[in-house]
């Protein structure tokens, strides 16, 4: 029983990371209807930026804030420079360009900061919490993710900019007709995704080691979380990410061999099963339609 509880709690902690990645995935999916395969590598690059700032002597939270801001700007820039010319291009072009970005960011991380693994500090420390069920860093990750979700929720539901963003995502043509600058909303979606990804990277790096390929597997889990959550709802993405994290941990503990050695295959199977049997995800809104 105690083991179960512990596994669920630490599953929630890893799930918090997946939830962040899933949130980032959903931000871009809502804006342009595509999955950003470079999301993980962008997050890794951001994390390296944070590492560099910390190494230069910035206090942790200053480095954190600056990295989030830089990542936001970087995301906006990528949309403006790289994706805007492609807006009417076929899906294959989008996928190829995402993969191109992935290769560029992966290499850029290795090129600038080399391929040796690096340690990354946690602002929360590694001490035990809740009677050793979680360590401080894990509790901090969960708190950060939930905090981010609340902020996003407030942004989307309470601000006019958030409303414009939702309108542009849901119905770009009508959004233009009320004067929403849809192009900029898409760029804003990229900026948000990139900033959220940076947070995910900085949260995960203390638990693993920082290296250019840190996020590839995490991204697959992020996709799984987003797909479970329905790809269109930020709350669904977070719930999906947490569910995937808990499932992964429980499988690792209770399913021999498969659970511990085939974690990525579990994520893969989950993605395929959900896409086939419940494409709107567990939390995706199905619109009540009236004919």
């Amino acid at each position, binding site marked *: 029983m105690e083991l179960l509880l512990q596994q669920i709690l630490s599953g929630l902690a890893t799930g918090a990371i997946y939830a962040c990645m899933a949130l980032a995935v959903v931000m871009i999916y809502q804006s342009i209807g595509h999955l950003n395969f470079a999301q993980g590598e962008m997050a890794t690059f951001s994390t390296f930026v944070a590492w560099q700032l910390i190494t230069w002597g910035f206090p942790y939270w200053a480095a954190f804030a600056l990295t989030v801001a830089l990542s936001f700007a970087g995301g906006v820039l990528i949309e403006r420079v790289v994706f805007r010319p492609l807006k009417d291009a076929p899906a294959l072009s989008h996928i190829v360009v995402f993969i191109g970005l992935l290769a560029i960011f992966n290499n850029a991380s290795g090129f600038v900061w080399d391929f040796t693994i690096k340690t990354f500090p946690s602002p929360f420390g590694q001490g035990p919490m809740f009677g050793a069920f979680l360590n401080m860093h894990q509790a901090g990750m969960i708190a950060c993710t939930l905090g981010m979700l609340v902020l996003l929720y407030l942004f989307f539901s309470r601000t*006019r900019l958030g*409303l*414009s963003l*939702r*309108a542009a995502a*849901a*119905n770009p*043509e*009508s*959004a*233009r*007709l*009320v*004067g*929403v*600058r*849809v192009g900029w909303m898409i760029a804003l979606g990229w900026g948000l995704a990139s900033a959220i990804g940076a947070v995910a990277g900085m949260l995960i790096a203390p638990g693993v080691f920082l290296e250019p390929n840190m996020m590839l597997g995490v991204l697959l889990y992020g996709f799984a979380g987003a797909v479970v959550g329905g790809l269109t709802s930020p709350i669904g993405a977070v719930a999906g990410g947490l569910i995937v994290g808990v499932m992964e941990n429980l499988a690792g503990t209770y399913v021999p061999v498969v659970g511990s050695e085939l974690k990525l295959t579990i994520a893969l199977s989950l993605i395929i099963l959900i896409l086939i049997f419940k494409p709107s995800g567990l939390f995706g*809104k199905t*619109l*009540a*339609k*009236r004919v």
Partner: protein
Amino acid sequence: MTALLSVHGLTASYGEGQVLAGLDFEVQRGGVTVLLGANGAGKTTTLRAICGMVRREGSIIFDGKPIQNLSTEGVVRLGVAHVPDGRGTFTQLTVDENLQLGAITRRGRKEIEHDIERCFGYFPVLKERRSQQAGTLSGGEQQMLAVARALMLRPKLMLLDEPSFGLAPMIVKQIFDIFRTLNASTSMSMLIVEQNAALALELADHAYLLETGRVVFAGRPDDIRNDPALRRSYLGY
């Protein structure tokens, strides 16, 4: 009266083929102009061209400014509200949010709230549904929402694409009564595209007939009513 919108030599194309073959027409300040024509004549395309939703060429002067090179957002921000065919409802958002979006380019919370109340005055049914998902409204309610959303811009010019399409006669009458009220009580001008010619001509001060992307007749509503051939083909009696 002077022209609020004047269009010269307007052409538009979807990809290859040209759909409009050089249109000339005007909308007077405070006036109501109606575009009539059979299906496929290019009426919708004309409205879309004014708003920059299709590739267009020619001169479009709105309120003294050339707008033929502006983006859709840019045209809208000058005060042109477009009620598109298909109504353009944000189906996943609530009625309230749809109305808020209509005023997204404006400042002043108080005034916007006030205008929302005014819209609810015109269309009380929207008030009852204000926190409902807009996609769950009936066709008539969605058309009212589309008109209300356009009004939220406080436009100088409203473009209406077949506002009576697919609606019960009762609702059509209700909506056109409101157009009449609006036209009488505000300085807003309207460019209306309609299949229901009789109804639209009652409201209009100018009318244009379109055939395959060309203006084939321009004049006053009475000119159509008094011309036996035009009356037969457009009014059906």
